């Protein structure tokens, strides 16, 4: 060692480091998300065991061991099938029409189908944001469709229009006839168009509104002629014969449609500066929100008839619909109020500065923005409403769940797996409906918040 040699020069290469642990791909995934610590290994195994014990019997029950064909209960018994029996699908096949239509007469079912199709046809474009004409579409779905559905599903015709009702109100004798019906219709049309034009500010300004109402009446006339409402309409199907999915959809769609105006009115009332309106709205909302839906349904079924004049009877389904509309309206009111409060005050002030009236400010500036904001929350409250329609079975209406319960009582299909099969089938219907709605709500929420995502 002479000391002049620099000691810091390495003579040999340092050993290569180990390659870094893979954190991508399948191996990396297993390493980081499933087996990265002893605790996680335990959790992974426990979850895997749990998943196996849930999924395996479900699939085995629904598909592998299921019986697909048969005409009565014997097909679904283990000794006949020769293997342990899972779902007994022939039971669903046999009860399918009951589960969908209840006891709606077989030769009239096309009416229910037509109503379903119309609803789908009107609803689908309403849900896709890109399709234009939302105002017309919403008007058709929320106003025209319910009236049409009423005459389609229940049947029956019209005796007259405004003048007929006036005559009845003042107990003037009016013998319905075809000529009087159309006379009444044209008179009503003329009066309504005139009033609309006057309300919208006289001839040149109210032209458009007058045209819209004229077109509306033309549409009504077309419907009257097609369904022959002037000649008694379709045969009446009593609501006691309705059942199954039909009732579920009727109750939920009526609830959704009727709860919107109630909700908007209550929300505006609660945010209004007029004290009596505010107090009334707060009391109304808090009352309905504070009680369970069943008490509301009992209220509608047992107390509402007491409050009406003795000679006035209302249909059991209608009573329930009234209760559900008020209940859902109170919940919607709170959702919509949230939207109203989220609109900056400047919007209203700017509209005021332009000289718009309260109603124009609300209808043209504030409400459209507020409603758009709360679509996701509204869809969530519709999901709750859809699920809550099952409660009508407690007041002896046969909705999908009620009809299922009735089907269980049939001794020709009493097997050990009938109950599970029935619950699986209806469960899938409810689940698909609710899940689709919740996904739609998420989709709208993302769209609304698109500007916030970076």
């Amino acid at each position, binding site marked *: 060692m002479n000391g002049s040699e620099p000691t810091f020069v390495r003579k040999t290469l340092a050993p290569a480091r180990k390659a870094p642990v893979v954190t991508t791909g399948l191996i990396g995934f297993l390493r980081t*998300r499933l087996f990265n610590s002893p605790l996680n290994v335990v959790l992974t195994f426990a979850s895997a065991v749990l998943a196996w014990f849930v999924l395996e019997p479900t699939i085995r029950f629904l598909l592998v061991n299921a019986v697909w064909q048969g005409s009565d209960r014997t097909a679904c018994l283990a000794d006949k099938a020769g293997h342990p029996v899972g779902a007994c699908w022939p039971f669903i096949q046999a009860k399918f029409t009951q589960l969908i239509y209840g006891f709606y007469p077989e030769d009239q079912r096309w009416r229910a189908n037509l109503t379903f199709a119309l609803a789908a046809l009107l609803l689908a474009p309403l849900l896709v944001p890109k399709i234009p004409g939302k105002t017309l579409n919403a008007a058709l779905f929320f106003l025209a469709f319910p009236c049409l559905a009423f005459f389609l599903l229940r049947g029956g015709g019209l005796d007259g229009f405004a003048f007929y009702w006036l005559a009845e109100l003042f107990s003037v004798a009016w013998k319905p006839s075809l000529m009087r019906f159309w006379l009444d219709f044209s008179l009503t049309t003329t009066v309504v168009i005139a009033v609309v034009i006057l309300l919208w500010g006289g001839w040149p300004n109210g032209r458009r509104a007058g045209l819209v109402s004229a077109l509306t009446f033309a549409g009504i006339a077309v419907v009257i002629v097609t369904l022959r409402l002037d000649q008694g309409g379709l045969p009446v199907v009593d609501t006691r014969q309705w059942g199954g999915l039909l009732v579920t959809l009727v109750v939920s769609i009526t609830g959704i449609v009727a709860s919107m105006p109630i909700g908007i009115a209550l929300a505006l009332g609660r945010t209004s500066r007029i004290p009596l*309106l505010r107090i009334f709205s707060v009391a109304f909302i808090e009352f309905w929100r504070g009680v369970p839906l069943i008490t509301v349904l009992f209220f509608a079924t047992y107390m509402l008839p*007491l409050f009406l004049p003795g000679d006035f009877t209302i249909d059991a389904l209608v009573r329930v619909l009234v209760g559900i509309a008020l209940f859902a309206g109170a919940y919607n009111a709170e959702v919509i109020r949230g939207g109203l409060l989220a609109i900056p005050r400047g919007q209203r002030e700017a509209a005021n500065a332009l000289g718009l009236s309260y109603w124009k400010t609300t209808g043209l500036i504030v409400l459209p923005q507020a409603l758009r904001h709360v679509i996701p929350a509204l869809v969530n409250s519709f999901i709750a409403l859809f699920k809550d329609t099952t409660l009508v079975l407690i007041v002896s209406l046969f909705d999908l769940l009620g009809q299922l319960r009735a089907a269980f009582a049939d001794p020709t299909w009493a097997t050990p797996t009938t109950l599970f099969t029935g619950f699986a089938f209806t469960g899938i219907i409810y689940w698909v409906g609710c899940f689709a709605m919740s996904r739609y709500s998420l989709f709208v929420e993302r769209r609304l918040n698109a500007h916030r995502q970076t």
Partner: protein
Amino acid sequence: MTMAPAPRQPPFRPLASLWRALSGGTGWKGIAGQLAFASLLAWLAFDVVTNAQDNLRAQHIASGFGFLSGTAGFSVNQALIRYSEADTYLRVFEVGLLNTLLVSIIGIVFATLIGFAVALGRLSQNWLLARLSGGYVEVIRNLPLLFQLLFWYLAVLAALPVPRQSLSIFGIAFLNNRGFVVPHIVPQQGAGVFVVAILAAIVASLIMAAYARRQLYRNGERLRVWPFALALLAGFPLLGTVLFGAPVVFDVPVLRGFNFAGGTRVTPEFVALAIALSTYTAAFIAEIVRGGLLAVPKGQMEAGASLGLPRSVILRLVIIPQAMRLILPPLTNQYLNLTKNSSLAVAIGYPDLFSVFAGTTLSQTGQAVEVIAMTMAVYLAISLVTSALMNVYGWHIDRSQRV
């Protein structure tokens, strides 16, 4: 140097302010509109009352609450207080109310436990666990509660074996299609002492925890409390037991013939309702808890980590206190929903308030107005009191966040 002009106060005109408040700033038009609205409401109320009187007279039903002292004459299969068929309708009301509260409290406890567990599972790093928890939430949340209730009651519990082949849980509790048989707890002489001992241990532990916290804040000294608290909680009751004898004796059910002797039978209705309510509400609670935990800014966790705190401590002292503020109001809402939903008991015949009062009592007496009003009033009172408490809490939080 210029003096800032003193801000001008608006002139004090109480009558004008009152007028503006009453009319809602719309002048005579507002007042007239309100008068019209009030008269409409009054007319509606008058109409409803007269119609109701006429209808009740036509049906020969005497209105009023006199029916409450009448004999009920029907039996109730679960009563927390002594009840027999000879008791009055008022007693039925009390029995039902207690049953509602019982199932609600049990439901709330289990829903909270399951809900928090599922929320943590859904937030876990573990992919499989997160997926499973997410699946639970999506399945349960998207099915109607009544559907689930009937599923548990009609399908699952009815499919359990008969009492002779009961599913035994460690030989002390038995599950069969007639319910859940659990040991009956018979209090003995030492029971009072036992309870006092536990209470004393809890109080002592709380005092220690408060002292430790003060030491931490004053001197930065960290005292370990939990071993002592555990020792106290185990030791005091044990001491009591040694000195005064066993506090309770468990009357374990035994199979005799076709049914069980001894023990307490929890009815299948109760089991189904408790399971359905707690699993259903748990799915909503899980989402609330998850949302609350995710809403705490990420920087809080990172700041805690940069201070060198372990993850569990960050969670306990930094994240959860902030998340709780967001979680608590909707959580209370879910508890209220659970209580209101317990009225679905009527569908399976669990004797809750709604089922025995608005169900059986209403159909026996026909006193629809009184019965439904009383039932609604109970639920309304529960929710109004809870929301009032929540408002106080919100006000408290609001004030404590103000600087």
